[in-house]
């Protein structure tokens, strides 16, 4: 018995040691991969294009130049896919892909495809299209020094700060319009999981919990959308400490839809941070508590923890709110990796 316990303890120690030593190494490999992809992309550009893409790391104006609006309304910095040749475009998307998880990259592509659907649907409206997405970098790609990768356009703003082995995805905006479309015979809902998982969580709550979670007022928009950096609002709704294990697991699963956009090792570190503050994390819902099967919810929800803000906000803009969604993902203590920079 004693021998078994000793063996078990040794195994646990070995596993812990392996995890501790592997995690930073895996993360460093991810950083190396992103840096290689970034440098490969930069090498495809001419000098003028490179100058357009690169900003200094301390360029706060560029850091905060992101929006949910189409690029024709709110111009982004950097260079658009439209301005690139096929090789450059492939290299640009390879940089974005290298920084994201496979599912994260798929989600981003579906958001862009949705904008293409809008372009076609509105008679080739030049305001929309999957080419109108911009890439920029703040600082030079480095495995050691901090730098930032931005990729965005209509309904998309990825702000990825990379500092050595660490990767920070906040603040990031995702959105979709149409939030449901057909492509090559398949139904696509770019933010479908965000909708379905939250709705499942709402339905897993008992009456008393729902009473806490469901807010009595209408929310017309994101509270902490673009331009609202560094703000921490008073949380509301149902606290995760009042949820059971299954409900808490479901809550974590909803959050993972945003935290899991970034590559696996950065997502794992982020999820560990979020789980550490889970007891103080709140879930609030506003709006309809039913959904047409196969469609997105038309309700707003917010998840707020010590180091987390997630907002899902359907837009009532001349149509079905379920078909037009804006979402926001923040860490008020570490947006743009500021906590890493302070160390």
């Amino acid at each position, binding site marked *: 018995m004693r021998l078994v316990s000793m063996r078990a303890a040794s195994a646990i120690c070995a596993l812990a040691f392996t995890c501790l030593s592997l995690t930073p190494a895996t993360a460093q490999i991810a950083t190396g991969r992103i840096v290689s992809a970034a440098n490969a992309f930069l090498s495809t550009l001419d000098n003028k294009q490179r100058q357009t893409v690169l900003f200094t790391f301390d360029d706060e104006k560029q850091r905060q130049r992101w929006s949910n609006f189409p690029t024709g309304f709110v111009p982004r910095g950097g260079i658009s896919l439209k301005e690139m040749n096929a090789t450059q475009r492939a290299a640009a998307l390879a940089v974005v892909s290298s920084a994201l998880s496979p599912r994260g990259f798929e989600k981003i592509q579906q958001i862009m495809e949705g904008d293409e659907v809008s372009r076609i649907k509105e008679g080739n409206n030049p305001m929309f299209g999957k080419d109108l997405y911009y890439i920029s970098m703040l600082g030079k790609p480095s495995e050691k020094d901090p730098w930032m990768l931005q990729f965005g356009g209509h309904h998309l703003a990825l702000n990825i700060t990379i500092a050595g082995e660490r990767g920070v995805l906040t603040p990031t905006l995702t959105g979709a319009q149409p939030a449901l479309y057909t492509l090559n015979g398949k139904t696509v809902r770019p933010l479908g999981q965000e909708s379905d998982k939250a709705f499942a969580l709402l339905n897993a709550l008992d009456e008393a919990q729902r009473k806490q979670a469901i807010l009595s007022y209408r929310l017309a928009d994101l509270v902490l959308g673009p331009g609202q950096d560094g703000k921490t609002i*008073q949380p509301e709704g149902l606290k995760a400490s009042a949820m059971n294990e299954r409900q808490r697991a479901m809550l974590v699963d909803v959050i993972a839809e945003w935290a899991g956009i970034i590559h696996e090792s950065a997502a794992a570190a982020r999820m560990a941070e979020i789980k550490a503050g889970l007891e103080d994390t709140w879930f609030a819902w506003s709006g309809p508590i039913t959904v047409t099967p196969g469609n997105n919810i038309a309700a707003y929800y917010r998840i707020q923890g010590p180091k987390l803000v997630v907002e899902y906000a359907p837009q009532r803009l001349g149509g079905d709110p379920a078909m037009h969604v804006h979402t926001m993902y923040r860490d008020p203590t570490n947006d743009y990796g500021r906590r890493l920079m302070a160390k």
Partner: protein
Amino acid sequence: MTKTLATAAATLLSLVAPASAHRLDEYLQATIISVEKNRVQAFTRLAPGVAVSSLVIANIDTNGDGIISDTEQQAYAERVLRDLSFSVDEHRLKPRLVSVAFPMTAEMKEGLGEIQIEFTADLPGAGGSRELIFENHHQSRIAAYLVNCLVPRDKNIQITAQNRNENQSFYRLTYVQAVGRPDPSSLGLWPGVRASLGTVVLLLFAGLTLIWRQRAKHGMPA
């Protein structure tokens, strides 16, 4: 008036069909309130949708010259302030404008611009449980209100409840304000105290140095 506004909005909506990417027929008014020991601060963002922007602009550009002058900006901000109501513990507060920022008129016309108004009001000194009520009645026919409160930086202030009506034109914030223990983050007191203490220590040190030198000069043991 409601009918006129609705007709105008509907007409404009039909003219701006492709602009499905952004706010159309609402006037978003998002306020974030910050409570401190002796004052309350608020920051309101006002964003008219493209279908109602002409109506809003007409309200601001009172002389109709197509330019929103500084005077018109200030006058509009004051008008917004008059449409808001702030009270704490049943005492009506008098908010003062801190700053006003307007976007380009062209941006506003496209439903993109955001008017930003920051204001503040002094709070009558008190401790214990307090109740702050904020009401927004500005352009209520087309408004989409949002109101929230920042987590107080002063650890002596704890928010206990937030209540709103359905459209968020009414907001009640209940909080507890502890008395006695000064909060370093909200008061400028500590730097002053530290500076005074530092001065006293320096003076003492200088005095002792002088005494030691005199003793050494006269061959006295230190």
